[in-house]
């Protein structure tokens, strides 16, 4: 079982909507040993990937967040509605539990404040600043989990 997976998602052609992708791109450069995934949208296929990790961190753009927020997702997650176009981080975690009887020990979702969703491949200056903060937040989680000796035990449900 691997230690940590970072997943950034969003539409990189819709300005700030791609904040999660931009953040994970920076994380991959700064922490080359950490496994990263950048996806346009969350889908059922991710369940198999995350089932193999002890800690999973999701990064997404948010219109509601005013500052970068780091929220722990309580585990295990029960199954809720999910769509091939609109899947949620808890939904994918629940799916991992149901399909593979496996779940990470820790899961977090980091929301990056976003304001512009117009066509464009660049984030707004304000969101770029928040992206940097989100990378720092992930750095702290990497320090906490990716190097911890306690993370060597596997966790399997059921």
């Amino acid at each position, binding site marked *: 079982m691997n230690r940590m997976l970072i997943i950034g998602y969003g539409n990189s052609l819709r300005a700030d909507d791609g904040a999660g992708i931009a953040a994970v791109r920076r994380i991959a450069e700064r922490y080359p040993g950490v496994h990263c995934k950048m996806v346009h949208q969350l889908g059922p296929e991710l369940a198999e990937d995350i089932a193999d990790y002890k800690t999973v961190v999701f990064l997404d753009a948010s219109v509601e967040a005013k500052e970068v927020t780091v929220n722990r997702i309580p585990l295990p997650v029960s199954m809720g*509605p999910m769509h*091939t176009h*609109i899947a949620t981080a808890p939904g994918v975690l629940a799916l991992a539990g149901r399909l593979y009887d496996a779940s990470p020990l820790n899961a977090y979702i980091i929301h990056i404040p976003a304001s512009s969703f117009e066509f464009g491949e660049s984030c707004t200056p304000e969101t770029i600043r928040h992206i940097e903060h989100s990378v720092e937040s992930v750095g702290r989680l990497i320090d906490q989990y990716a190097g911890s000796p306690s993370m060597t035990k596997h966790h399997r449900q059921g």
Partner: protein
Amino acid sequence: MVKTITIEPVTRIEGHAKITIHLDEQGTVSDARFHVNEFRGFEKFCEGRLMWEMPGITSRICGICPASHLIASAKAGDEILSIRIPETAEKLRRLMTLAQWTQSHALSFFHLSSPDFLLGFDSDPVKRNVFGLIGEHKEFARRGIRLRKFGQEVIEVLGGRKIHTPWAVAGGVREAFDATKKEHLLAWIPEARETVLLALETLKKIHERYKADIPNFGNFRSLFVGLVSEDGGLEYYDGTLRVMDGGGNIVADKLDPRLYQHFLGEQSEPWSYLKFPYYRPLGYPKGMYRVGPLARVNICDYIETPLAEAERKCFKAMAGDADAMNNSFYYHYARLIELLFSVEKIEQLLHDPSLFGSHIRAKAMINRDEGVGFCEAPRGTLFHHYWVNENGVLQKVNMLIATAQNNLAMNRTVRQIAMHYVDGQSIAEGMLNRVEAGIRCFDPCLSCSTHALGQMPLHLQLFDVKGILLDECVR
């Protein structure tokens, strides 16, 4: 009292739509319509962009079949450059197209349609989805998800990411195949093949289970249109167009897809954003035709891989004397035959040494002011038609999308199902679901076909003779 029932949104399809069912004075169905109520206008906002950018832009039309738009767009670029691309590039594009078929067909069957079949048309709609399927048929669902993942893996290996890869370009492709990934992809083949065979076995049981329903699921004669290879085989990347009628007679053959506007017209209706293409020689709406798996398996003379060819023969035998399968329910069967073909052909291509060449892109200046790119997308024949100036700046764009080409047939299917199941006295959820399931046979992608935003709920409305809304159901 005349009434209209509206189903909105239509669920488990890609995009937004609603269905209205119109009843007469006796409460029997007089008409039914499939309305597509989303719009994005890609054709318009692509004007003024450089032709070179188009594969990257148009692949964003859809999150399900971006690779098909990528390929059609790159091929339109090839035409404008007036060049023939290197053999390796063509093989790689073919591999990408098959990977697209694999992931999209797996999504259609396992995620979107099998909940109806395995949980039942009348089962609890809250659970009648892929997650309900996981609860009842965990291994089947898990296999379906992994099969789709296989298709996505091939796309990711080729293009660097699962969706919206900018990999194909006018003149070829950007990146050669990473030969170190060959064994990784080949390792998927046995499981993928086993999963498709399991799906076929399951579908045949479904045919038995629903033999009373199937004759009412869009069972009518129409034309069938699609690409075939030079000698009439199943084609997915190139070839020429063949038109077959509902009796299995070839009406037209070896038509140049670049001249599609000569024989395929497009009509608009005020109640839908989705155009209504038709076969020009028969006029509108008599020139109704179907594209996609049902059409492709109907029109081809053979399939080049052994397991898929054996299934094609079974499929044709079921068609009986007509020599063409006219029932839309059998889109599912044709889709699984194509899925089997895709897995077999991907394996063949991965063993083809020419896939690993380094000459992957031909370069040229703008040599034509017009180009048509085409391929078989999962849902049917896809055309990208670009007009450019001497600098390659787009002056005009036309895209003829597979789902739109099935529009007349989808409407006919909805009407037939509604006439059979709707009594006008009450709206039974299971009845509505059968109407939706008729649409799902075609696996429509409304995001593509209207070039529009996509998430897919469903709305059903009931109107009286004066057009007054009497009842509605929204999910």
